[in-house]
């Protein structure tokens, strides 16, 4: 990345792998379980968090010197909630169909612990540009895991990707289903997401032993 210094580039790249908010910091698990039954929802959620975290981090960073520390959590919450409501209202007026897809995510974004976590841990102590990069990086790291989980859950659970059948027709028994293959109903329910996330954590830590915590 020629545009960014090495330090700035790391703000984006670190959360994608060795400091991933879901697999290393174990934040944002709740939404990773709730909405990854299909790939489309995973992508929409990732983009929403990308926007809110990117802008929110900048706002908090700009205010960092004037926020009274006693009420900083409340201030952070107000910033997230305001951003989410603004996005929701604008979409409702100008992109109604999209807003209906997003409706269920709005509440989940406000309560997403990654957002509060980054405000608290990073934006309160760093400048706006760095905070922006940190927000984007963490949102991407979150999104990558969501998309991976969504991919496997939708493929194995429903035999579709983005709602398009890719393994044949399970009722008419065409494609892969003609060999006796069945969709795995377990993948549709939330515990399956925990197992997929667990496998990702396992794979990541066996590749990079430095990530394993001392017991």
């Amino acid at each position, binding site marked *: 990345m020629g545009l960014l210094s090495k330090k700035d580039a790391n703000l984006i790249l670190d959360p994608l792998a060795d400091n991933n908010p879901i697999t290393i910091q174990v934040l944002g698990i709740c939404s990773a379980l709730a909405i990854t*039954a299909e790939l489309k*929802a995973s992508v929409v959620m990732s983009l929403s968090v990308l926007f809110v975290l990117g802008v929110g981090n900048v706002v908090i960073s700009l205010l960092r*010197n*004037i926020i009274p520390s006693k009420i900083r959590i409340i201030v952070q919450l107000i910033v997230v909630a305001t951003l989410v409501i603004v996005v929701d*209202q604008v979409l*409702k*007026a100008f992109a109604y169909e999209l807003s209906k897809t997003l*409706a269920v995510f709005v509440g989940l974004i406000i309560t997403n612990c990654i957002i509060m976590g980054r405000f608290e841990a990073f934006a309160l102590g760093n400048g706006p540009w760095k905070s922006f990069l940190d927000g984007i990086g963490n949102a991407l790291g979150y999104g990558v895991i969501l998309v991976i989980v969504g991919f496997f859950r939708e493929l194995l659970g429903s035999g579709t990707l983005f709602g398009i059948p890719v393994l044949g027709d399970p009722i008419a028994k065409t494609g892969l289903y003609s060999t006796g293959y069945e969709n795995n109903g377990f993948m549709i329910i939330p515990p399956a997401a925990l197992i997929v996330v667990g496998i990702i954590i396992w794979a990541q830590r066996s590749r990079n032993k430095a990530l394993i915590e001392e017991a």
Partner: protein
Amino acid sequence: MNTEKNSYTVIFATVMVVIVGSLLAFLASGLRPRIDENERFEKQQNILYAMGVSQNEDAGSVNFIPTDVVEEEFSKYIKQQLVVVGSESKERDEAYLIDMKKQLNIIKNGDEAELPLFIGEKEGKQYYIIPMYGKGLWDAIWGFISLDENMVVQGVVFDHKGETPGLGSNIKLRFFMDDFTGESVLDGNRYAGISVVKGNNDPLNNDKEDNQVDALAGATITGNGVTAMIKETLKLYKPYLETIRTK
């Protein structure tokens, strides 16, 4: 500047609330007309969809009439907009704007509500379209059901506020809604409605007389909500439906 003083904290909080509050109020009132219009179009699209006026091509996705022509199509197909009180009905313009949720609250308080009902006509056939409102797993679910004189479902449309994506939210997909078409809501003379059931040995839904459709995996509560919603709605409209029923 000492940001730790109590007075500063109070002032900061006050200023912040005023700024954020006015920003949101300004935005909400500015965008209100556009949002209202979108919601109005959506209702018209849903009512038309329930009577089979849509842009659906073979199997797959749900395609409503586009918003730019929906008003025209709505006045073309919907011949009468009624409000029903008991078995009586009278015509009312723009009855489709009546909020079902409010009417259900009126009924809950023991008062007489005005229930909207729409009569559509397509290729010489009459459709009686009834709005529904109920509860899913997380939040409200609603929709429209259209019946003919024999109390056979001609089409349904469902929507929801916050059902789980990929599970309960699938009530608004084609494969689920299409199953209802052709089912009778009668069981003998009883308004049994249509139940969403698991393992009914009829996943392809060939039996149209069993008052059942196949459930969605992983969405039991939402499915039960749909069952209850249809049943409750039929109970409310039964006196009127008796007057138009021919079978």
